[in-house]
């Protein structure tokens, strides 16, 4: 009785739980067990693996400290991977955010046909990345692809979409931008529609230009949404795998080799799980650093402003 009467929240260690909590735990337990078994445990296990020489070809596994991390950073292949990853993340996120805000502003206006446009925007994010990868592989096929066929028809020079290192990187970025920009449009659209109208109306009354309103009022108000979007996309670009694997397998010559592809090749072609785990954790740390910068820099700026 006394336990039931206790306010929900804090329970003394070892004491029995309130029935409502018991029910809650029981209902949550299948999901929790699954989470621990398929997420937390492998995550911890692979972290441990990253400190071991864990090659399938070796008869035993042994502790090597930070050696796998050192090998990875010393590997010229990984240095190229890091370069490619940074270019991929920076360019795709920049284009997606700028295009996403632009299209969201357009879709938010009262033009004809925009309802249909909003519905169509749902299509790319709904398609599985594997399907997107296969489709773009065919679209960009040098001999039989639609894109080169159109260029040929227009009398323009064809492009070596997937066979030239620079074009290949551009191709996978196009596929990523095509798939993810619409989702960002929807997120920005939700943000735009939840903005308070008073400051905008006041600025209009004061005779501010549409660009001035957008730059000085809409965009600053939209900042929390932009931060969330940036966070999601940074995490996402460091996890991108399917589209790249299906379009180029990281090639030609590592030109589209993102960290996930690098880790996959190390694990499943070299059977070197220690190194693959190290690469995966480097990717995780890198995305955490970017997230820390994303949130830390404005926070530091605010603190400095306050102290000054």
């Amino acid at each position, binding site marked *: 009785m006394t336990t039931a009467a206790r306010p929900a929240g804090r329970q003394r260690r070892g004491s029995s739980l309130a029935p409502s909590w018991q029910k809650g735990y029981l209902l949550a337990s299948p999901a929790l067990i699954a989470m621990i078994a398929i997420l937390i445990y492998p995550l911890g296990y692979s972290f441990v693996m990253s400190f071991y020489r864990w090659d399938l*070809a070796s008869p035993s596994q042994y502790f090597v400290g930070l050696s796998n991390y050192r090998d990875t950073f010393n590997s010229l292949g990984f240095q190229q991977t890091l370069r490619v990853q940074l270019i991929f993340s920076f360019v795709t996120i920049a284009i997606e955010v700028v295009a996403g805000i632009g299209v969201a502003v357009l879709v938010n206006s009262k033009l004809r046909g925009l309802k249909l446009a909003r519905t169509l925007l749902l299509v790319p994010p709904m398609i599985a990345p594997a399907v997107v990868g296969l489709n773009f592989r065919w679209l960009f096929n040098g001999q039989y692809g639609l894109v080169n066929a159109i260029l040929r028809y227009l009398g323009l020079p064809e492009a070596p979409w997937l066979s*030239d290192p620079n074009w290949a990187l551009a191709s996978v970025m196009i596929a990523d931008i095509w798939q993810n920009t619409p989702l960002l449009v929807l997120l920005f659209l939700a943000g735009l529609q939840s903005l308070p109208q008073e400051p905008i109306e006041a600025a209009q009354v004061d005779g501010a230009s549409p660009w001035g309103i957008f730059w000085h009022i809409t965009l600053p108000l939209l900042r929390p949404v932009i931060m969330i979007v940036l966070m999601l996309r940074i995490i996402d670009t460091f996890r991108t795998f399917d589209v790249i694997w299906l379009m180029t397998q990281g090639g030609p*010559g590592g030109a589209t080799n993102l960290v996930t592809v690098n880790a996959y090749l190390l*694990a499943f072609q070299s059977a070197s799980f220690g190194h693959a785990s190290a690469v995966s954790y480097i990717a995780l740390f890198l995305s955490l650093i970017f997230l820390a910068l994303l949130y830390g820099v404005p926070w530091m700026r605010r603190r400095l402003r306050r102290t000054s």
Partner: protein
Amino acid sequence: MSIRLTRRGFLGGSAAVIGGSTLAAPYIAQAQNADEIRALLITGGPLYPKYWEKVVADFTAKTGIKVKYDLLEFTPLTTKIVTLGAARSPLYDVFSTHTAQIDSFFNYFGPLNEYFTADELKDFYQVGVDYLVDPKTKNLAAIPRNMDARTQYYRSDVYAEHGLKAAVTWEDLVAVSQKLTGNGYYGLVVPGQGDPAQRTFSDYLWQAGGDWVDDQGKPAFNAAPGIEALTFYRDLIQKWKVVPPDAVSYQWNENSTQFSSGAVMDTFDWPGAFATLANPETSKVVGKWSTAPYVRNKTAISCAISHAMALNSMSKRKPPAVEFIKYTVSPEAQLLNFNEYSNFPSRLSVAKQVVSEATGAKAEWLAQLEQTIATGKEWPKLPGFSRVCTLMFSTIERALSNQQTPEEALNQAAAEALQIMTQAGAYN
């Protein structure tokens, strides 16, 4: 009755469920009849599933042992075995495997030496068996099921029209291919990505008189023959432009399809292509092609490898599993594999039989294959070399796509390869 659930009890219970499931999972997976084994087998193309269906049915009829099997194509098959091997899984008793990746599995596959006598092994192509042996332990990790070697497949109708003969040397190959390139057609196709790129470079390396490692097992592929080989390979695509420019993204399937669709006039392909190209369901060039030996430079060496069968060292049903492996490499199964799918036998006795029975173009092709196998080689199976292979994929691709010169790419790879192999204990 009320149940008292504490937070500690809940977390402890959850941990017990997870622990129990983890420990029980392998046993649940293995829970099957003693006269039933599980096999993970290779497939590829529309014909392979029928082959395994027949082999398994015949085996069960003869022995009463049931075989539950799953089929996967080459790359996903290797990936799956890597995953199972890392987990030391006993899920499958028998695996299809291949010389190319065997060194990754030396510690996962059970030794077959004790199941095959020296006399029995004498009936297999020596080169096929040699590269399936772990150089450190001398254990036979797998037994060859069919030999994999390549010959030249060319469009005899187009060649005749232009008064051309199949290329014999590297120079011929360039000259002939240049004459047949134009109007959307290409004189030649070679793969340029991943393992197929390494395989192609490897052939050119040997043909240029080089090898992967020197007498001490140190990387030697960046010596003059290696540079000559990679330069020739790159020039086919970038300088002479006799190969489709997308070739740097081609693997075996794309390579074969370019020829079977009629878009290119010449290629180097595996024995299975002989059946695929003759089948109207899989080829647009039926009756329009012939075969010739692989081209040569300083030597005529190319690879002689094999599809093989292996035993899981963790298997709890080794005797029936070995019985199945023995059946898949039996003369009966190899004859079926050759007659239906043109896969060349790994047994000398069966090879002799099929060669003696063949006539016309088939006899010529078999003679060419035998010639390739007789001089054929494979890259070394030294510790760490499987990681070197992955390194080579991107090295070769970088040179083929003009990101680096062949010399730069190979020197860089050789330095890293030495480090990898030293670390893996290749020189202990």
